[in-house]
């Protein structure tokens, strides 16, 4: 029976994350040399080793291609949402009909829920405010709430279905 420290997983809990950290280091110093690559790799091994006790379990990204499409949709929606919010801000405040609604989540994975909540905060007139872990709902505040069911359906179709596909 091997003791824990004999296995490579003990020293390198997240190989991909270590690679990502090394790449991030190279981008930060903006200098691609062998010395900096080595230093980045050393940091990439040392940081996950020192901190992996704090992390939740790993999220599994099953399909990277829909993730790219999701990011593109998100980019377009951020621009669109900014126009919507800017118009609402410039118009007189008495035209506003703000309101809360709770969004029933279908996702289970913590990481996917985090991404969905961030997406809701970045897109048209909505900010996610509270996550209820027992009922598995998100409390969302909308700057202009007219059609509650339509908004829920919109979020479901546009963001949650693709996320389910990515993290299933």
């Amino acid at each position, binding site marked *: 029976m091997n003791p824990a420290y004999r296995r490579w997983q003990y020293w390198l809990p997240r190989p991909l994350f270590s690679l990502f950290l090394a790449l*991030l280091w190279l*981008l*930060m110093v*903006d200098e691609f040399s062998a010395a900096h690559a080595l230093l980045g790799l050393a940091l990439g091994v040392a940081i996950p080793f020192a901190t992996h006790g704090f992390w939740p379990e790993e999220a599994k990204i099953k399909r990277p291609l829909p993730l790219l499409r999701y990011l593109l949709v998100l980019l377009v929606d*951020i*621009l669109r*949402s*900014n126009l919507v*919010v*800017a118009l609402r*801000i*410039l118009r007189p*405040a008495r035209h*506003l*009909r*703000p*309101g*809360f*609604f709770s969004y029933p989540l279908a996702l289970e994975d913590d990481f996917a829920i985090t991404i969905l*909540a*961030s*997406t*809701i*905060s*970045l897109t048209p*007139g909505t*900010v*996610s*405010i*509270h996550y209820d872990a027992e009922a598995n709902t998100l*409390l969302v*505040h909308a*700057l202009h*709430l007219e059609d509650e069911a339509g908004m829920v359906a919109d979020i479901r179709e546009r963001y949650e279905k693709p996320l389910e596909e990515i993290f299933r």
Partner: protein
Amino acid sequence: MTNIDMPWYLELVIVAFLLFGALVALIGSWGLAKLPDFYTRLHGPTKASTLGVGCTLIGSLLYFSHQQDGVSVQEALVTIFLFATAPVSAHMMGKAALRRRLKGIQGTRNMPDR
């Protein structure tokens, strides 16, 4: 400020990014100053200011990629960092406001009573 022969179209793109970013950020801060209650004020900074500063950073990225040799990716890192953290801080502030039982303005629908 040194301006070594930059093609006019690149200059135009950078100027467009800088001005658009500044305008959007100004609208976001205007919303922060004028909107009637905390929950509506939360919308301006999370969306408009983040996009405005993001556009400014991208303009700066284009400028320095042309001025200096190679691509300067560091501004892109700050942009990604801002876009990743803005929703999180908005979520935390919203939670704190709910816990302090801040009231929404008259006509806020489904105000949670916690």
